[in-house]
C-alpha cells in the first residue's frame, strides 16, 4: 500500500503568512505538497467553524497562521486569534483530537523558510499519527 499522505489545510493571513508562503515560492524552497492554503485577511478572521469544516471534510491536520503580534495589519488580530484558538483547542480536546493535528503559528512575511519547515514538520508528525479519527465514518446498522 502507498504511504499515507496526510492532508493539511492552512489558514493564513493575507499580509504575513500567505506572503511568507509566496516567498517560499519565489525562493524555490521545496516542501511537501500535502498542504492547501486558504487565504484569509487576518488570522483574527479565522472562525472555529473553518477548522471544524476542514476536519469534517477529511483534513488530517490544520494550521492557523498569521502575523506576529507586532506586525498585524489590523493592529491586534493575532491576539484575537489566540483567544479563538484557545477556545477551539478546548473543544477539539474534548473530542479527543490529538494536539499535533492543530497548530497555531506566527510566520511573518520574510519567513518563507519557516513556513516550509512548519509544513515539513507537520507532515512528518501526521504520518506517524495516521489518518484523522474524524475521517472514519460510523457504520449505520439500519
Amino acid at each position, binding site marked *: 500500500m502507498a504511504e499515507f499522505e496526510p492532508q493539511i489545510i492552512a489558514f493564513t493571513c493575507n499580509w504575513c503568512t500567505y506572503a511568507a508562503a509566496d516567498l517560499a515560492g519565489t525562493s524555490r524552497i521545496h516542501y511537501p505538497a500535502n498542504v492547501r492554503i486558504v487565504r484569509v485577511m487576518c488570522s483574527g478572521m479565522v*472562525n*472555529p*467553524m473553518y477548522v*471544524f*469544516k476542514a*476536519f*469534517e471534510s477529511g483534513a488530517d491536520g490544520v494550521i492557523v497562521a498569521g502575523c506576529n503580534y507586532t506586525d498585524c495589519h489590523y493592529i491586534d488580530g493575532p491576539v484575537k486569534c489566540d483567544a479563538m484558538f484557545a*477556545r*477551539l483547542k*478546548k*473543544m477539539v*480536546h*474534548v*473530542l*479527543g483530537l490529538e494536539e499535533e493535528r492543530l497548530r497555531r503559528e506566527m510566520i511573518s512575511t520574510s519567513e518563507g523558510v519557516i513556513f516550509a519547515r512548519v509544513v515539513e514538520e507537520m507532515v512528518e508528525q501526521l504520518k506517524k499519527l495516521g489518518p484523522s*479519527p*474524524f*475521517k*472514519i*465514518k*460510523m*457504520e*449505520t*446498522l*439500519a
Partner: protein
Amino acid sequence: MNLEDIIQETKTYYCLECGKCSSLCPISRYDPQYSPRVMVENALLGLEDEIVYNKKLFSCLTCYTCQLKCPSDVDYPLFIQKARVLATAAGQHGDYAHSGTLQSIAMLMARSPLKQNRLEWLKKDGYRTSEKSDVMLFIGCSPYFEPVFEDIPMRTLNIAEASLKVLNSLGIEPLVHPDERCCGHDALWMGDVETFKKLAEHNATVIKESGVKKVIFFCPECYRTFKLDYPNYVKLDCEVMHISELLAQRLETEGLRFNEVKRKVTYQDPCRLGRHLGIYDAPRKVLQAIPGIELVEMEHNREESICCGTSCFTNCDSYSKQIRVERLLEAKATGAETLITSCPKCQTHFRCAMVNKGEEKGPDIEIELMDLVNLVATSLGG
C-alpha cells in the same frame, strides 16, 4: 417520505385554517414573515418548494404551543421536523448560531472511533461514580458547551456536577460513561436523520453493553429524545427519567430533607419537559419542598409557558431575542430574585440574552438564573 406522507402522518390535512397557531406562536408575534398557518396551507396546496426553500422553516422552536391549542390536533412541530428532512435533502439548512460549531461537533461525534476527553471535570472533585452501577447519568453535550459558551458565561458542567452531587446524596453512585455521544436531538429536529441515527445507535449500544437499568437526565432535550424518539429507531431496554422526576419521587417515598434556602423564585417550564412530556408538577414539588423557597408563577406558566426563544442553535435572531426579552421581563415582573429552570439550554439562551457589551443599553432584563439541580444541590449540601 414525501410531503404527502408527512401531511398524513401529522394530520395536517385536518387543518381548518383557523389561524390559532399563528396567533399563539411566539415567533409569529415578532416575525411578520413567519406563520405556521401559511406553512400548513402551502403544504396542503402541494407547494413543496415554498416550504423546502423557505429559511423560516428553521425558525420554528418546535415548542408545541400551537399544537396544544390546535382544534384539529395537527402535529405541527412534527410536520416541521419531517419537512426539514426534505429541506436537508435539498441542501438547505437554517442559519446556524455559533457559526455552526455545535452542529459540527455533533456531526464529528457521529464518527468513530473517538477517544473523547469528556470526563475531565469528574477528576476534580470527590464525586462518587461507579462503573458497575445500574443507574447511568447522561451528560450529553455539556463538556462541549463549556468552551463554546465561555463568554456568556454559561457553565453547563455546573449542572452536571450538581446532578452528580444530588444523586450521590440520594445514595446513588451512577455510571458516567466516557464514550457517550450527543443524544442527536438537534440533528433530528434539524432534519439530519443520518447523523441522528448514528448517534442513537451508538448510545443505545453503549447503554446496552454497560447493562444499566435506568438512565437519568438533567437535560430535558436528551430526555425527550431517549423517551420519545429513540424507540422509533433503536431498542433501548431501560427506564429513562428526568432528575426532577426522580427527586419528586424520592420526596414522596423517602421524605427527603432539605436545608433552608431563603429565596423568592419563579420557574421556567422547558418546552421539552413541559409541553412535550407533560411534566409540570415534579419540578414545582421539588421547589416547594425546599424550606425558605417562595415560588411565584409568571404570567404564562405550565402549558402556556413561553419558550426560551431558541432551538437547536439555529435561526437565533432578533425575533428570538425579543421572545427572550419578553420572557425575562415577565420573570422580573414576578418580583422573584431567581429564575429557575431545569434545562441547560434554556439557561444558556436566557443568559445569552443578557449579554450586553455595547455602550447603549436595551431594557433591563438582568435576573439571576439557576438550574433546579443546582438549587437542590445547595440545599442538600451541608
